[in-house]
C-alpha cells in the first residue's frame, strides 16, 4: 500500500495505491496525518489506483472528512471504481462524501 500527498491547484490531493486493508491501515493512518493536522484547503482523495478498502480504510476516510469539516473545508473523492463504490454504498459513505 502506497500513500502520496501532493499539493495541486491549492488543494491537497491524496493518492491511494494498492490494498487498504486492516494490516495496511495503521501505516496509512500515519501517512495521512499531516493532511488532517493542518487543513488549509479542500482535500481530494484520489482512488484511481485503490484496489481494495476495508472498514479500517473507511474509518481513515471518515476521520479525514471529520477534520476537514471541522475546518469548513470539503473532501472530494475521485476515481473510485465500481466495486469500491458499492462498498461506499453499502456503508452509506456515498452520502457523506462529494465525488468528482
Amino acid at each position: 500500500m502506497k500513500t502520496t500527498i501532493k499539493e495541486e491547484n491549492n488543494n491537497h490531493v491524496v493518492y491511494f495505491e494498492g490494498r487498504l486493508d486492516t494490516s495496511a491501515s495503521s501505516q496509512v493512518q500515519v501517512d495521512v496525518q499531516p493532511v488532517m493536522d493542518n487543513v488549509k484547503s479542500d482535500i481530494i482523495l484520489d482512488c484511481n489506483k485503490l484496489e481494495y478498502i476495508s472498514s479500517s480504510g473507511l474509518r481513515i476516510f471518515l476521520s479525514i472528512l471529520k477534520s476537514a469539516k471541522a475546518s469548513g473545508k470539503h473532501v472530494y473523492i475521485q476515481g473510485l471504481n465500481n466495486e469500491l463504490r458499492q462498498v461506499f454504498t453499502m456503508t452509506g459513505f456515498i452520502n457523506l462524501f462529494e465525488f468528482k
Partner: protein
Amino acid sequence: MKHKFWRIRSFATRLSIWVILTAAIILLTTALVVNFFVRDGILREEQLRATSALENAEEHINKVFIAVETAVKNHTNEIKKNVNAPHEEMYRITREMLEINPMIVGSAIAFEPNYFPDEGKYFSPYSYRDEKGEILSKQLGTDTYDYHTMEWYQMPKKLKKGHWSEPYCDTGGGEMTMTTYSYPLTDNEGNVYAIVTADVSLDWLSDMMDSLKYYEQSYCFILSRDGTYLAHPIKETVLNETVFDASKKLKNDDLAQIGKEMTGGKMDMKRFSSPHLGHSFIFYKPIVRTGWSMAIVCSAKEFFSSATDAGFFVATLILVMLVILAFILKIGVRRLTLPLTQFTQAVNEVANGNLQAKLPPVRSKDEMLRLRNSFVTMQRSLEQQMEELKQVNEQKGRIESELRIASNIQRAMLPKIFPPYPDRDDIDIYGQQTPAKAVGGDLFDFYIRDEKLFFCIGDVSGKGIPASLVMAVARSLFRTLSMHEPHPNRIISQMNDRMAEDNELNMFVTLFIGVLDLPTGRLRYCNAGHNAPLLLNEAENVKEKTFLPCDSNLPIGIMGGWKFTLQETNITPGTTIFLYTDGLTEAENIEHELFGEERMIDAVPFTSNSQDITERVVEAVQDFTGEAEQSDDLTMLTVRYIRPDQNLRFKQEITLTNDVSQVPQLTDFVDLVCEKVNFDAATTMQMNLAMEEAVVNVMNYAYPEGTTGDIHIVAAANDKRLKFIISDNGIPFDPTMRKEVDTTLSAEERPIGGLGIHLVTQLMDSINYERKDNMNVLTLRKKLRVEG
C-alpha cells in the same frame, strides 16, 4: 287409466260422488219405507174393503133367508087355523107361499104320519114352480119317498125350531142348487105335528159372488159346513167337490188349511198360493146363519199393482232427480271449488318465487274467503320474511365475507411458500394448516436469521375472530421479539409479559419455540404448555420416534413474569422434528374416539421429505375421522435437519493468530477459495472484505489486547454454497448482537466503529454465531452462482 274412487284426485268430483251417494241412499231408503207402508196400507184397506164386501154379501144372504123364514113363520098361523079345514086349504097355503115370495121355488107342509087318518101315512101338500115358472102342486109323500126320515124333516122336529138344510142339487124342476128351510108346527101340548118347508134356489149365490168380484182377476167362493163348494167360478165343482178334495187334487196344503179354518167359522186374511191366480191374498168370513163360509181371493200382483206402479214411478223419479243432482253438483261444486283450483295455481306461482302472484277474487263470505284471507296473510308475511331473510343474508354475507377476509389475512400470516429455502441443503421444512370452519387460532412460523432456524407452533385458546386476533398478535410478537433475541425462553417470556397485560378475555396461547443452530445442530427450545414435538431420529442403523422432553411451563398470556425454562439438545443430521397442535391428537371420528398420540406416532413415517410426512399424517387422520366434521384446526410443522456437509466439493483450512498483520494471508486464502469456486473478481473482493471484517473483529474482540490466540478458518463448498467457519477459543463474543449501523447519519454523527459486521451481513448471504464447546463459531455463507 283405472281410477278407483278413493284415488280420484279432484276434490269436486269426490264431493259430488259423496253427495250423490248420500242422496241416493236417503231417497232409496225413503222410497222403500214409503213403499212398505203403502203396501201395508193397501193391505189394510183391502182387508176392510173385502170384509165389508163379505159382510154385504152375508147381509144379502141373511136378508133372503130371513125373508124366507118370515114367510114360512107368517104362514104357520094360517096353517094352524086351517088344519081342520078341507085339505085343499093346505095346497092353497103352499101355493100362496110361492105366489107371495118369488124367491121361494117350492114349499111343503109335511104332516106327521097318519096325522089325517083319511089321508093315510103320508100327507105332505107341496107346491113348486115348473120350468116355465108356473106353480104346480102335488102330494109329496109316497112309500118310495118317506119324507119322515129326511134330514129336512127330522132336524126341525128334533130341535123344535127352524132349520136350513145343507144345500143340495134338485133335479125336480131342472138342475138347481137348493136349500130348504124347515119349520116345525107344534100343537098346544108342544108336539110337532107338521113341518113347513120353503125351498130356495141358491143359483143367485153364484151370481152374487160374481158381483162381489172387485178385481179383474179375483174370484169368490162359498163353502158349506162340510167344505163343499156352494159357489165357485168353476160351476162343475159346486156341490160336487169339497175344498179338501180340491186341496188334495191340487196338492195345495194351504188350501186345506184355509178350508179347515173356514169350516171352523173363522174370519181372517191370508197369503196363499192360489191354484188359479198364483201368489194371492184370501179373505174369508163365516155366514153365521147357515154355518157356511165365504171367501174372496185376489191376486197379489193386481192387489199391489197401484203400489208397484207407484214404486216404479218413484224409482224413475229418484233416478231422474239423481241425474239432475249430479248435473247441478257438477256445475255447483265446480263453481264453488273453482277458487281452490285458482288458489292452487297462485300458490304454485308463489312457490316458484313470484310472491306477487294474484289470488283469485272471492265474493262469498264463507270458508273460501277465510282461506283467501289466510293466503293473503301468508303471502304478505312470506314477502316480509323474504325481505328480512334477504337483509339477514346480506348482513350474513357481509359478515361471512369479512370472516373470509379475516381468514385470508390470518392464513396469509402463515408461511405458505414451500419449500421455503429451495437453495438450502441443510433444512427441509413443511407446514400446513387445515382450518376447522373459518378462522382459527393455530399458528406456526419459522424463519432463518444468522443461520439459526427460529420456528414456533402454537394454539390460541378458543376459536373464531378473537382467537385469530390473538394469533396474529402472538405471531407478530414472535417475529419482532425473536429478531434480537436468540434464546427461545426469553422470547417466550417477553411474549408472555406483553400478552398478559390487558388480557381481559383471559385468552392464552400454548406455544413451542425452537431455535435450531443450523451449522451445529444445537437446538434450544422452550415449551409454553404446548404438545411436545415428536423427534424422528434416523441416524445410521437407528430409527426411533421419541417425544422431545419438555418442561411444564404455563401457556403464555396467563401470568406475567413467569420464568420460562430453556432446554437444549443436540439434533443430529437426519432428524425430523414433527410439531403439531392438539387438533391432530384430538381429531375425533364419528364414535367420538380421539386420534391420540399412539396413532399419531404410528402415522408419522420415516421419509426424506417433510411434505410427504405431513401429507401422510393428514391422510391417516382423514381415514380415521371419516365422515366426522373436523372440530379443530389441524396444524403441523415438520422440520427436517439434514446433514450439512453433504456433497462437499472441497474443504480448505487455515489457522491465523490474532494479529492484523496476518490479513494478507487471509486474503491469499480467500482468493484461493474464490478461485476454486469460480467467483469473479468483484465477488472475490466482496468475500475478502467480509472475511477480513469478520476475522479482524474476532482478533479485536475475542482476544482482549495483550492476549494471543488462534483463529481457525474452514472454507467448505458443495454444489450450492460456499461456507466459512471461523472459530476461536476467545471470550464469548457474538458479533451478530452488535447494534445495526445507521447508514443515514451525517459525517459528524457517524461513529467510527461498527462498520465491519454491517459489511459482513451485507456481503454474505448469512451470518451465524454459535457458542459451542467454549468456542465462538461464526459461520458465513455465500451462495454459488448457478452455472448456466
